[in-house]
């Protein structure tokens, strides 16, 4: 398990990390969310000791991270970069060797991952000759070549076409199934919601929400969505009384915030007494809503 504990880092008067703590379990894909400038990149770099911390520590499997541990990690930085004039195959092999692989082992692994990411026929091309999307695939191959135990990816989906997104999603899930811990940041929240089991949301260098996506989507006071066929104005809701509070009415769909889930059947009984119930169910928040609420609450 990767643990980031009470990380603090400031640059002059700017606070990048303000006591940030969270963890990533092995075998899980965790989304790392936050507005621009929230401290995501600084936190990810801290895992690789690329930024000195004012305080706090990063642990892997319960111990401080040693250089030999770090060579079993894979990293795709936000600012992509490989040697422009180096051939794809040689470059990925070289990165594998820097992670401690032998020459033939690294060459075989490079060939495997380059093929897996659809670049077999570009093995001998220089990086600068590839399209941006293909450069990104080569970058992912470089992060995966040594079958890392921890994969940290900063905005891995940015710039990818739908096919590339599917490939990337499959690879992340595959690595997690193989037992790796996967942490990635993204602003594509629908994608994160689709891929991740858990998310950590930070703002101003602090953790503002964390947990399984389903729990966060159901979090807060339960909200019911009720629609009656013959009541486009939602007038029936005036008789709710203490059962709940109407938060919105949109084209007859009434959103009712209730104190507890037990009250849902009472609300249903009330609605059925008025007319035909066309729709009734608990409202599940989108991750984008969770994100906005968490960031707003964190700011306040």
């Amino acid at each position, binding site marked *: 398990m990767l643990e980031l504990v009470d990380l603090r880092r400031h640059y002059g008067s700017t606070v990048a990390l303000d006591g940030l703590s969270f963890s990533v379990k092995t075998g899980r894909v965790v989304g790392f969310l936050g507005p621009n400038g929230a401290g995501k990149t600084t936190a990810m770099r801290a895992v690789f000791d690329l930024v*000195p911390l004012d305080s706090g520590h990063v642990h892997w499997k319960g111990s401080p991270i040693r250089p030999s541990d770090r060579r079993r990690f894979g990293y795709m930085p936000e600012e992509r*970069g490989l040697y422009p004039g180096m051939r794809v195959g040689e470059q990925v092999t*070289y990165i594998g060797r820097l992670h401690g692989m032998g020459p033939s082992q690294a060459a075989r692994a490079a060939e495997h991952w380059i093929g897996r990411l659809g670049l077999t026929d570009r093995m001998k091309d220089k990086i600068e000759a590839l399209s941006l999307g293909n450069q990104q695939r080569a970058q992912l191959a470089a992060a995966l070549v040594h079958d890392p135990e921890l994969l940290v990816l900063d905005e891995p989906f940015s710039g990818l076409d739908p096919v590339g997104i599917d490939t990337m999603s499959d690879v992340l899930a595959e690595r997690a199934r193989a037992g790796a811990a996967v942490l990635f940041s993204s602003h594509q929240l629908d994608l994160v919601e689709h891929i991740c089991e858990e998310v950590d949301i930070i703002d101003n260098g602090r953790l503002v929400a964390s947990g399984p996506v389903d729990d966060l989507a159901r979090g807060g006071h339960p909200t019911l969505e009720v629609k009656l066929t013959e009541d486009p104005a939602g007038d029936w809701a005036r008789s709710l009384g203490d059962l709940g509070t109407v938060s919105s009415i949109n084209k007859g769909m009434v959103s009712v915030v209730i104190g507890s889930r037990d009250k849902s059947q009472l609300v249903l009984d009330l609605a059925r007494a008025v007319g035909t119930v066309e729709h009734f169910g608990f409202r599940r928040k989108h991750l984008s809503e969770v994100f906005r609420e968490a960031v707003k609450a964190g700011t306040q």
Partner: protein
Amino acid sequence: MKDDWFAFTWLVARRELMERARAKSFKVATVILLVAVAAGVAVPALISGQKPVVQVGLVGGSAGARAVALEAGKVTGTVVRARPEPSLAAAKEALRKGTLGLVVVAGKEVLLKQVTSSNGTSSLTALARAIAQLEGESELLASLPPAAAKAIERGAALPVRGLLPPPRSLTLKVTGFVAALVIYILLLTYGMRITVGTQEEKTSRVAEVLLSAIRPSQLLMGKVLGMGLLFLLQIVALLTTALVAAAASGSTLLRGSSPAVLGISAVWFLLGYAFYCTLFAAAGSMITRQADSYNATLPMQIPLILGYILADTLTFSSVSTFDKVLSFFPPTAPVIGPAIYAAGGVVLWQVALSCLLCVAGTVAVGRLASTIYARSLLRTGIRVKLRDALKNELAT
């Protein structure tokens, strides 16, 4: 692979060496340099340095006369090809036909086809006069008792001795200055290549991927080691080409140069590279545009230029205290070192002390450069200020 520092550093160095050697620009530049050096050495020698060749016929006592003729050839800068003639008549016939340049009749005379002038200065006349002089002296000494001959050979004059050691020859001083000039050019040229190479690595953003696996010190040292080895190979190729071209063309390029000065120069180049390479890399890590490389490397250029200027003055001026002090100062020592030794300003133990100080300085600046490099390499955007790099206030 073992978790040892050098193994990963060597991986970086190897990549640097192989990739740069494979680059078309490097191959083209090296070929141009090799051709330029070969031409620079050989063409002047071929144009102006052709020694005249004279066929010399020997009549009687050919062994002694042959030795005399060859010695006279060395004295007059003439290539002598001597051969015994069957008879004086045959020799005269060959002389008339022009197949012989001159004929030595042992113990008697030196024959030319025609003596053009008593004060003639042609190479043939000069050779004839030298042979006549040496052969005459040889005959005279052979006719005297051994003791008298020995006394004459030794000479009659008393020895002359100075209280101070003789001043260094101009040739030696020029050798020292040329060595300083070459070291100055190489350190500046190769230093700038390191700066640009590091800046390109930073601009391509590959550094962050590399630093997620290895330490900044491994990346820095691997880079300067790989580039240094490539530069060394290039220098060896250039020197080999120069020596081969000099030997093949009969160039006198290295005549009069001192092996000691050349050896010390080689040591100073290596120490100078070690001292400056990490600093040039640190400068490269602070910039994002190649256009900024000149300003970023100015702190390194100033001591190199100062060392070069002082080395220049040492050719015709005496060694000052200031020169001596700067020959112990690590930033200027690699350039001024060979020149001040050639000028007699320092002796070997002082050279050794200066080298030790330079090694200590290399360790110190290596640490400083490594810190700057590690703190600046991931900072993209505007140029990193030295003060910020040292204070570690860089936003990422």
